[in-house]
């Protein structure tokens, strides 16, 4: 038989004397430390993260990207984050022109020409640097709502991007569930290095220097603590883009209907609107010591592109000073309605056409791992991430004409990424 006794209003004499004795025992300082701890949780603090990323495609692109981010958490739980990125990109990217039985000459963004041997995939050389700044401010409103606003600016030689975003997150049901609503807008300007070329022409200038591109998007998300160990989340986004959505440097080959040899290259043409949607379902599961992350994303847009992406990571902590996190990712993307392997001379010209491999059928497999460790001589934690990615498309499509049939029109690409990061809080 048990019974709970409830605190009466009067404090008994023994208890009062005992509390005095206890506070002497705990040396005053210790008790004060316990009492003040609730407030100490609100103490302002700093967090600094930085990384250097090296990305390479064999015989193609090399990207060097240092990043630094600093976060200030203020006493009332609000925080301000500033991030600075710098990329240096050097290399070559497929221009969209098809391999051919004849030697081909292509023009680079800066106006130089490049000649590739017969059968090779024409690539366009480029070199660019990009600087980006991102600011974000988060502010709790009451005990269940958090508002986040942010903005970014980035600049490279031929591209400038400016954007803003806002997000509200609400925690309900004893904080077991979270609902998120977000919106963002982007205003970009594309200034091709050698002027803008007219669509479906070899080299006609439009006389327009800069081209506008706009975007806005909406986000709805929810997450729920399913069990003590399992968190499940779902997010949907809807975005609209309009303006100059073509790539100024990509071309579509014209093909001889019999031989399949390229006869020329026309600047590509894409619709000036695009509606994009995606749904992401993610799960975080805490095993006894390991944590696994599993997610699936379905993407579809009104250009006819559909994509499925699965991602799995598992973090294993050897002890509190080092961990390893293997990572594997699969993605399959279907081609856009107007994706073209070349326009056959004499056939009706389509409304839109692109041979940009990023809008073609594309399979991607990524395998990698992150290793995090401490150095006794350095505060904070160091992480090293290595990733290998294999990407391939439809190399021998049914629609290939003549000599095209003998070439792999979408040769696989292997890339490697090495990232070194350092994080410290104080």
């Amino acid at each position, binding site marked *: 038989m048990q019974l709970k006794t409830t605190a009466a209003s009067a404090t008994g004499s*023994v208890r009062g004397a005992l509390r005095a004795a206890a506070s002497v025992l705990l040396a005053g300082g210790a008790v004060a430390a316990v009492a003040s701890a609730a407030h100490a949780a609100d103490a302002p603090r700093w967090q600094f993260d930085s990384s250097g990323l090296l990305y390479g495609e064999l015989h193609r692109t090399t990207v060097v990207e240092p990043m630094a981010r600093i976060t200030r958490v203020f006493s009332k739980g609000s925080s301000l984050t500033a991030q600075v990125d710098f990329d240096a990109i050097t290399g070559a990217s497929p221009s969209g022109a098809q391999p051919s039985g004849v030697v081909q000459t292509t023009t680079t963004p800066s106006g130089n020409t490049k000649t590739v041997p017969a059968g090779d995939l024409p690539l366009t050389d480029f070199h660019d640097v990009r600087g980006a700044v991102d600011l974000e401010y988060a502010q709790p409103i009451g005990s269940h709502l958090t508002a986040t606003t942010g903005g970014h600016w980035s600049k490279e030689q031929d591209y400038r991007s400016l954007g803003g975003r806002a997000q509200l997150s609400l925690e309900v049901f004893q904080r077991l569930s979270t609902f998120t609503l977000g919106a963002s807008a982007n205003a970009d300007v594309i200034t091709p290095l050698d002027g803008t070329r007219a669509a479906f022409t070899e080299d006609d200038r439009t006389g327009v220097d800069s081209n506008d591109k706009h975007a806005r998007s909406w986000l709805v998300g929810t997450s729920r603590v399913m069990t003590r160990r399992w968190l499940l989340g779902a997010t949907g986004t809807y975005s609209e883009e309009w303006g100059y959505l073509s790539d100024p440097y990509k071309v579509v080959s014209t093909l001889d209907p019999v031989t399949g040899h390229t006869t020329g290259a026309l600047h590509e043409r894409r619709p000036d609107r695009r509606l994009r949607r995606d749904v992401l379902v993610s799960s975080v599961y805490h095993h006894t010591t390991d944590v696994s992350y599993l997610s699936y994303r379905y993407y579809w847009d009104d250009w006819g592109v559909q994509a499925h992406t699965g991602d799995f990571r598992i973090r294993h902590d050897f002890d509190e000073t080092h961990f390893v996190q293997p990572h594997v990712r699969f993605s399959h993307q279907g081609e856009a309605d107007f994706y073209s392997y070349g326009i056959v001379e004499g056939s009706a010209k389509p409304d839109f056409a692109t041979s940009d491999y990023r809008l073609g059928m594309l399979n991607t497999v990524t395998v990698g791992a992150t290793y995090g460790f401490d150095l006794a001589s350095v505060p904070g934690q160091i992480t090293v991430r290595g990733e290998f990615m294999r990407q391939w498309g439809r190399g021998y499509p049914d629609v290939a004409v003549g000599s095209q049939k003998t070439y792999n029109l979408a040769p696989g690409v292997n890339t490697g990424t090495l990232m070194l990061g350092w994080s410290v809080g104080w």
Partner: protein
Amino acid sequence: MVSEDAPRLERLGDVWVGRFTAMASPCEVLVDTDRRRDAADLVRAARAEARRIERKFSRYRDDSVVHAIHAGRGAPFEPDAETARLLGYAAACFELSGGLFDVTSGVLRRAWTFDGAEAAPDDARIAEALAHVGWPRVEWDGRTFMLPEGMELDFGGLGKEYAVDSAAALLAERSPVACLVNFGGDLVANAARRDGAPWIVGVDDPDRTGEGALYRIELQHGGLATSGDARRYVTWRGKRLGHILDPRTGWPVADAPRSVTVLSTTCIEAGTLATLAILQGRGARAFLEAQGVTGWVVDA
């Protein structure tokens, strides 16, 4: 192989749980953070504090302060500041309990074996033990302590609760992260959790230890301690006698509750109030009510 230096850490929901053994009890520290390394630092600090206090005040170790006092065989002893504070607290407990809470009563326990068997208490043995019991026989002026030869000091009834408070305060000084420090069921929460939710503490049914909680207590911050132990008793003339001994008679306290759990600002205060309540026997509940204490009493 688990190295001595790495406390066992487990992720449970949004807290890290560190486990270790100290003071012959399973100990647990819940750390309200996502950062494993921060949790490990705090768990290691709590473990170090528990083991420091165990080492210093254990009756069973020959390098403890208690051993040094006993080895002095009645010689004057000048304790360090922490030991002096603990002796001061013991003196206060004796005064406030009217002699029921006595840190010199440990000798009595040797006259009893609480193994559940039918006991025939040996009156002569109890009388002999009682001759070596009694806080008024010690000399303590706040600086010099003298324990007559043959008497023994036992901080067993205070040490664990003191270690809980001391470790929790130490962690609060080290980090703003909220922790729940639990040494063998005596515990303290040193701060409210970061999402404002309370710590949920389950109190076992003494008859079914580990099988499920008798109560669920929501704790924002403060201490919780339980006195009484269902597994330690003797039967005498068909009556079940608990292991709480009245130092004035040498006999187990009559009609003592099986266990008393008390919620208070600190663990040591909660633990002392719980012990004082049990020492009141049938009056345990009335005592808690008179003191304005929130407590849970499980009757025998």
